[in-house]
């Protein structure tokens, strides 16, 4: 008998969706469900870990083991889960506030450890759940509820930051192009190591519907002339100011993963001496 082929529908849940009509995150949800189907991931073997924010609710909307955790901590929870169960697929997700502000420390150090997980950031340049404050990726000068005189700070560039930190897979998608985003998530999941997929996912309520048009207008899909294996080229792309790069910006395979290194440490330790029972350790104290 042929195994039943999983479709995007198999990754839907009955949890009511709280997002505003027209929210960019719907496109990301569709892309994630389609990517899971494309990868034929058994739902029970998929973990979706998020932090706090509008987008972090996505953990409940995908048929999987979902964990809508606390603000900024999606990455360490996802990494801990991957370390415990390296055989399963782990997706971490959340917003720009969650990942690039309160969770920045984890973003930095997760990249250094290179666990084989995919991190999907729904970057909308605003704090939506708390109704419209400035975020770490809000453009300089923009008026928000907490910057009535205009944002005095320059925005953080997550792509450039990830590249400098040695991330092994960096991509950027647009929630208005689900098919393209689905392909990025599929490639990110297949990548052996930490994969960042930053998604331009507009907040229609606090930044307006025109955000979709801005991204459509400035979005530049990377074509064959871009070599994701070329760090310098990737760096140049992350510095674009007039265009928004879309596609796989950088990718390098063969960098050891956190759980791979841990498995190797266990193998070496057990080769030297495998303990079955704790009592065997008593001799250390003699």
């Amino acid at each position: 008998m042929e195994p039943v082929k999983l479709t995007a529908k198999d990754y839907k849940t009955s949890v009511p969706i709280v997002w505003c009509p027209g929210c960019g995150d719907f496109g990301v949800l569709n892309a994630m469900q389609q990517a899971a189907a494309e990868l034929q991931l058994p739902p029970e073997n998929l973990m979706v870990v998020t932090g706090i924010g509008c987008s972090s609710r996505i953990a409940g909307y995908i048929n999987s083991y979902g964990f809508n955790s606390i603000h900024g901590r999606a990455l360490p929870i996802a990494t801990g889960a991957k370390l415990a169960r390296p055989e399963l697929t782990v997706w971490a997700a959340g917003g720009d506030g969650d990942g690039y502000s309160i969770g920045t420390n984890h973003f930095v150090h997760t990249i250094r450890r290179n666990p084989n997980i995919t991190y999907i950031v729904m970057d909308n340049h605003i704090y939506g759940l708390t109704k419209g404050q400035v975020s770490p990726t809000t453009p300089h000068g923009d008026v928000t509820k907490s910057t009535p005189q205009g944002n005095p700070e320059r925005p953080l560039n997550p792509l450039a930051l990830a590249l400098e930190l040695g991330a092994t897979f960096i991509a950027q998608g647009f929630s208005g192009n689900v098919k393209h985003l689905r392909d990025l998530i599929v490639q990110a999941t297949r990548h052996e190591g930490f994969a960042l997929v930053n998604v331009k996912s507009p907040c229609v309520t606090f930044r307006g519907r025109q955000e979709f048009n801005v991204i459509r207008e400035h979005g530049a899909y990377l074509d064959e002339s871009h070599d994701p294996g070329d760090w310098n080229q990737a760096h140049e792309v992350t510095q674009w100011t007039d265009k928004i790069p879309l596609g796989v910006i950088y990718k390098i395979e063969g960098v050891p993963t956190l759980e791979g290194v841990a498995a190797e440490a266990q193998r070496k330790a057990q080769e030297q001496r495998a303990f079955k029972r704790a009592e065997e350790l008593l001799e250390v104290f003699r």
Partner: protein
Amino acid sequence: MRDVTLAIAGSGGDGVITAGDFIVQAAARKGLHAFMLKSYGPQIRGGESSARIRISDRPIYSQGDYVDFLVVFSWKDFNRFLDEIQLRKGAVVLYDEADTTPPEEFPIDKDLEVELIAVPFKKMASEEIKVPLTKNMVALGVIAELLHLPLDAIKDAVMKKFGKRKPEAAQVNLQAIDLGKAWVNEHLPKGTQVMLEAEGSGEPKLVMTGDDAVAFGAVHAGVKVFAGYPITPASPILEFLSKWLPHFGGSVVQTEDEIAAITYAIGASWAGKQAMTASSGPGIALKMEAFGLAAMAEIPLVVVNVQRVGPSTGIPSKSEQADLFQAVGGTHGDVPRVVLAPSDVEDNFQVAVEAFYIAEKYQIPVIILTDQFLGERSETVDPEVLFARKRVISRQLAKPSDLKDYKRYKITDTGVSPMAVPGMAGGQHVISGLEHHEDGRPTSSGTIHQIMSEKRARKLPLIAEESGFVRVYGDENAELAVLAWGSSKGAVREAIERAQEEGIKVKAIVPQLIHPIPEKAFDAALKGVKRAVVVELSFGAQFYRYLRAYYDGLPKETYSYARSGANPLLVSEVVGAIKEHTAALGSLQEA
């Protein structure tokens, strides 16, 4: 003397702690009981440090109030420990003759009539061994000879440490030890300096620190993922597990911060493996939000707090019992949690085993409230006592029948719901820090919040009735009871014995389970008690106030003996409190 307390004081480079370690190991090999408390200043290297070692043929419960035998490399360094090292009348004091401080300026009370002996530690090490750093080993030879510790046991310990890695260093050290021994025989009158007359059982004992014991206990309990961030005095737990957990197929991560450490553990436990994190007060404060997440999401989790002096940075290298409120009440919301407190090194192991048992059985976060005094001291331990607790369990998973129309937070009589972990088909669900329905869906309904608060809290009375968490020492029928917790048990237990020797009827009640309060066991232990005194090292009398707030069964006449930590609790001060309350009890009866 069958019970000797020795102190060695010097600067960091003097090798004080190393010498102390060898003495403890030698005593352990002889089957004696031994106990070593390290004390050091804030400097990383070169600061003052002291080792306080007690050796006896009877079980040792505390560091000993008075020092019988003192070795001083430098009076300047010794001055820093005046607070901690109180000499017994007639104590023997050896000092390095290289220190030029004139005898009239020695910081020792003349009334103590100590026996002062100048020893050329530095000179012998420099001129005869030609390695000045071996002066601690010369001192070790002198001490061993005076205490009648077997030289072969000391040499075994030295060989164990240096033999394989640095055979040359081992030889030099052995020579220095022999030199010290010979100096005693040549320069001191024979037979008069034999101080330790205790014979060991001959059955070698193990030597362990409390930090190692709690880590080792976690290994026995089945921990598979540990995440931690360096902090005094909890780092040895991270180091022990980094070294040994891979041998058991587990993983350790030193994370970027305290929050990452606890959230790694939460992620690993949620994914199906037993997990733990450890820190000290400041780090625990940072972890508290995530601790609440584990409680809300009902994820088994063990968090170790090796308490140190607070608030804030406090005194990182010294002990206190003032994180009790943080443990029982820290973080926002009504958070069902469990707090366990070990009271000696063996207990650190046992309590780690029990912590995992409770965490896994009840799907609840557990705090192990140990402290620097337990964590960094070395103590001889009995392996049989370590492994006495048999409650080692694995993850309790949902049964296949639970997975039909699966509800992660199903309302049950015990409050414990079937737990499906990733990989189990049909068990998919979402969990969160948000209040939720039985199936995990978020809700903002006040009615469901009430129902779920009741469900989570239903576990607590069941945990309070788990057996074996309250110990009673002394006279069971006594009308006076001392209530103590954690590392205070040592001085309290010894004080009870001393008071009993003086004919005072008193008992001590020491719970391992602090929260929830094991009420029935407390009621039984307090039966017939007319007066109680709660002894602790917390300036704010946190244990006293906690018992007052959470437990209705205290005798009406319940008092507090509380002071701030840093200096260990003394047996004599507890005996003083016992006597005071015994007298008050007498007048109560007369009235």
